[in-house]
């Protein structure tokens, strides 16, 4: 019934818009606002400050402050974000929000310009592609009830990456950076406006040789290319309609010699940057292409209609070490090398493979092709009824995505410290399937303002059809589900500088098609409450949150041994709670210098509410009260700077407390947790004139080498001390 209603809504709504004559008239867009409101989900920095909920807006200045290419470095500026580091460059980040699992960012909604951008957010939510943050104008993080507008994953929140808009006049920039391990980054940016039309060309290439040292020599680095072209058309305003059309196409590729294989704790202690020779053939190769069309229509009645059409394609081949064929879990081998001397010797190339069971190195090419496309129509209307101001928002999205998986295994013998193909090209495929999803999403939101109160009430409906065709098993399974996700929040401007807010919403993260015919989506009830203080130089936010999961899902990935990739596990009731604190303060000196200070802190606690035995390796044996894995109790980031019009010096200290690697409580067991660590980064910028800017960055000044994770397989380090210098020329 709901699906039928939605289909009718789309037909009527689209037809209505198409019947409108598009006149060569517009009221005249605000040309100073070069970031389109329609691609922002928070309303920008000002919008964040008035939201009846938690959100963070990271602007271009912050992105360029240390010339970040790693999204996770930037997201540390937002409280409530949990990062599990993996390759040291943030190529495939693991981002969680408010306890939602960080695994390949699969429990959060990620968008570019408000458009779903991960390869297949419904069918295969693991985000093997995220846009390069270095080419972005802003990063927005939305949590709490505000997140229900941005499904499908709303248990934690949403992240929106805002790309460089078309400028109002001819501008351009050239950037280059060079650093440790042959780090190189080049960027070219050119944009112009010609009459009513404009364009932006954004070129980015960066890469490094990598800081890992492969046994016997070999590549461990990466290269990324990213080309984006935006076209913009804003016709003259002669009619009572306001049009704005933006079309963007993009292509990005990556070649990285990345692996899932880490080290034993013993080897890590000696040489944290070592890479075993058994991962020598590992290589990730991907291509991403996208076409986004955004059409904004302002009607005389004040109704603003935004239509977004999008097509994304992502192909990847990840040829990588995947264990020992018929052998024990390599995770276990790395954890217990004393028990598995032959197997660890094989990984290290110190033992030759013999014609015995479990001595062939498994190198599997995980080949996947993803696609997503959809049409998203939303409308906004401001209405005044007496003393109540209503801002009504409604939206409907049709989305289709799919993933074709073809995981082909090859066996290699370890002979004399090198990998030798065993000649068998016809091994049984590990995974060979197609998963697809058709989803309609509808949301309705009313923001009611009355005196010092703002009330936000909304509802999101997701109607999802999933299908999984397994070509190995010759089976076809499908399921569908419709969920209604309400949310409500309130903001009270208690004093001019102090606001108090609270909200509750139902969170949802859909099950993937691989969940089979029994739908078992993740649902939660999320509460948040907080206060916000704001004056000229100070912004303080203190928020408490509580998420009560009725069905937490763990999703098996290729790196999880003992389960089938895509298989889903239910943990039943889980509670996650905590507090988020953020402070931004700027002290201005009379001399023209200023001292900006920023502190972000997140406290988190979690507890499984039932005991069970799980086949999901991260959970294992769970008892009531056990804490979630990879959810640190304390995360903090402190930044202080000294700057004037020409110079800026920035020091950033990041702290992450111990993280459990499997569910548990009480004392942490050796080898079953990552230690706490503190990293200091320093950055300096010098503006020679209006055009030339120089940059120098030292990451991990103290060269702290700690284990950040033992996933996917084995201990992985914090990156070593890294230097970067670069320039930017604006014209």
């Amino acid at each position, binding site marked *: 019934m709901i699906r039928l209603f939605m289909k009718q809504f789309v037909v009527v709504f689209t037809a209505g818009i198409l019947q409108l004559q598009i006149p060569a008239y517009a009221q005249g867009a605000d040309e100073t606002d070069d970031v389109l409101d329609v691609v922002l989900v928070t309303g920008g920095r000002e919008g964040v400050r008035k939201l009846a909920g938690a959100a963070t807006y990271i602007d271009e200045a912050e992105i360029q402050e240390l010339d970040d290419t790693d999204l996770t470095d930037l997201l540390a500026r937002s409280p409530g974000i949990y990062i599990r580091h993996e390759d040291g460059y943030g190529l495939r980040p693991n981002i969680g929000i408010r306890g939602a699992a960080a695994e390949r960012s699969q429990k959060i909604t990620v968008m570019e310009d408000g458009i779903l951008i991960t390869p297949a957010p419904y069918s295969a939510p693991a985000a093997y592609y995220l846009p390069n943050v270095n080419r972005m104008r802003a990063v927005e993080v939305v949590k709490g009830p505000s997140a229900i507008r941005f499904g499908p994953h709303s248990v934690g929140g949403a992240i929106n990456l805002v790309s460089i808009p078309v400028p109002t006049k001819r501008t351009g920039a050239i950037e280059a950076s060079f650093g440790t391990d042959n780090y190189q980054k080049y960027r070219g940016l050119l944009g112009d406006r010609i009459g009513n039309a404009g364009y932006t060309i954004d070129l980015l290439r960066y890469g490094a040789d990598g800081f890992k040292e492969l046994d016997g020599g070999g590549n461990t680095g990466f290269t990324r290319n990213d080309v984006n072209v935006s076209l913009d058309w804003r016709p003259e305003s002669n009619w009572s309609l306001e049009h704005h059309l933006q079309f963007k196409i993009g292509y990005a590729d990556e070649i990285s010699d990345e692996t899932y294989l880490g080290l034993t704790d013993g080897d890590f202690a000696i040489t944290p940057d070592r890479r075993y020779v058994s991962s020598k053939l590992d290589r990730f190769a991907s291509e991403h292409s996208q076409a986004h069309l955004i059409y904004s229509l302002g009607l005389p009645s004040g109704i603003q209609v935004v239509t977004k059409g999008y097509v994304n394609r992502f192909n990847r081949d990840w040829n990588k070490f995947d264990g020992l064929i018929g052998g*024990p879990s390599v995770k276990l081998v790395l954890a217990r090398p004393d028990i598995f001397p032959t197997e660890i010797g094989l990984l290290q190339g110190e033992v030759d493979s013999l014609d015995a069971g479990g001595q062939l190195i498994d190198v599997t090419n995980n080949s996947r092709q993803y696609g997503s496309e959809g049409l998203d129509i939303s409308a906004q209307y401001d209405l005044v009824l007496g003393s109540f101001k209503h801002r009504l928002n409604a939206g409907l999205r049709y989305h289709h995505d799919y993933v074709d998986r073809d995981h082909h295994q090859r066996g290699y013998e370890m002979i004399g410290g090198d990998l030798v193909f065993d000649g068998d090209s016809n091994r049984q495929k590990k995974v060979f399937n197609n998963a697809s999803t058709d989803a309609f999403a509808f949301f309705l939101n009313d923001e009611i303002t009355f005196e010092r109160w703002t009330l936000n009430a909304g509802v999101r409906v997701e109607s999802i059809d999933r299908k999984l065709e397994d070509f190995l098993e010759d089976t076809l399974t499908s399921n569908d589900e419709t969920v209604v996700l309400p949310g409500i929040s309130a903001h009270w401007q208690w004093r001019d500088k102090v606001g108090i807010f609270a909200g509750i919403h139902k969170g949802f993260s859909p099950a993937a098609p691989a969940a089979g015919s029994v739908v078992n989506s993740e649902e939660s009830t999320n509460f948040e409450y907080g206060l916000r203080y704001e004056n000229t130089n100070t912004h303080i936010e203190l928020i408490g949150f509580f998420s009560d999961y009725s069905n937490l899902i763990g999703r098996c990935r290729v790196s999880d041994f003992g389960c089938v990739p895509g298989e889903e596990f239910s943990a039943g009731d889980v509670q996650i*709670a905590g507090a988020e604190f953020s402070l931004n303060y700027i002290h201005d000196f009379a001399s023209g210098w200023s001292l900006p200070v920023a502190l972000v802190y997140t*406290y988190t606690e979690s507890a499984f509410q039932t005991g*069970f035995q799980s086949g999901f390796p991260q959970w294992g*044996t769970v008892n*009531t009260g056990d804490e979630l894995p990879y959810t640190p109790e304390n995360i903090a980031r402190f930044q202080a700077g000294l700057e004037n019009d020409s110079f800026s010096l920035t020091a950033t200290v990041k702290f992450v407390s111990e993280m459990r690697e499997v569910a548990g*409580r009480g004392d942490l*067991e050796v080898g079953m947790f990552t230690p706490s660590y503190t990293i200091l980064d320093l950055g300096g910028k010098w503006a020679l004139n209006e055009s030339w800017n120089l940059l120098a960055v030292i990451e991990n000044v103290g060269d702290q080498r700690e284990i950040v994770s033992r996933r996917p397989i084995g201990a992985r380090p914090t990156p070593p001390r890294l230097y970067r210098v670069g320039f930017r020329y604006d014209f």
Partner: protein
Amino acid sequence: MIQIARHILLIALAVFSGCVNSDSGDSNEVPTSEGFDFVGMMASYADGVLLPSYERLESTIEVLSEPTGAIANYCGSISTADEGVMLDAARIAWQEAMSSWQEAEAYLVGPVMDNGGSIRNSIYSFFSGSPLSTCAIDQAVMLAQNPSFDLTNRSFNQRGLDALEYLLFNEDLTHTCPAQIVETQTWNIQPAEQRKLLRCEYAFDLAEDVVLSADGLGVAWQSSGGNFRTEFINPENLADNFQQLSDALFYIELSTKDAKLGVPTGIKDGCSQLTCPEASESRFSDTALENIRSNLIGFRELLTGGAGLGFDDIIIAEGFPEVNNNFHTNIEAAITLIDSMDMSLLDQLAIIEGSGSDASCLNSAANPETVQMIPVCSLHGFLKRITDSLRTEFIVIVNVDLPDGAAGDND
């Protein structure tokens, strides 16, 4: 100032922070040995119990099979003054090899049980289902003189340690075959020294054959061979291998208590007479009790994991140390009782037969500490206490199933 700000921040965070219900409660505790190092336990069994046991077996059998070993020396001494001494030395070496095997046979897991237990049966065929064929051995002794004779083609019931026992301990040089058997028709007319020599030479061949089987067992576990060690430790196979280990403990019930003691003493169904000495093990050497002693030592190793982690550690982790104590008390009592016996099993069976009644035996079995009129029956009583604990407390605490064939115990 900083202190004040810090305290304000902490108080504010405490006020604002949500909190979860982390009460562990009781009802939802997972009833497993949480945190128990099962992988370490399996590795401990492999490296500390099973592989050393197989190495001992191999080395003790090699003493028999080497060109200058006990059997070769005996063969060389036949018709000399040293013949008796060398025969005794060969018998002692056999006994040591047999003890190694009896201990190893308590660990019936992995390759030793593959292919219907072919490796096991080629080393020792007592439980193969096919009784030792002395006639077939007598025939093989004759056939072995032909260079084309292939020992490996012979059935299990004419190979292994039990065949060796027959050749080394049987004083009767007369063959045991019916008259129509062609191969042995000329045997009895050969000189005694010649018959001893032929039997000894065939015993040497048998010992080499057993060494090959014991070798094969070790190789099957090694990474350079079948690599079963890894398969055994691999947690993906934990459920199966853990159950196999647990099943192996029941050797002490099904094989030791029932087959080796229960049937010969008439306590167990399967003996239709007062006693059944013909069902006893190692009748030619009359060393059945030594075998049982080795079985008990093997059982203890299997229960404890030797010096490493074992079932007993799970039992302790689950909070039942007294169950371990009971096991150890009864194992020690059984071994001490065996050590104190001055009569063999066959001798004691003769006493039961002589009494014409099973009353003394049953009384001894029912009250093993206080009544030891027939010590082997008391020994059965101690073994029953062990196996009763196995099939009740052990399987519940360790959370395993009874093995096939142990579903009932009608003692």
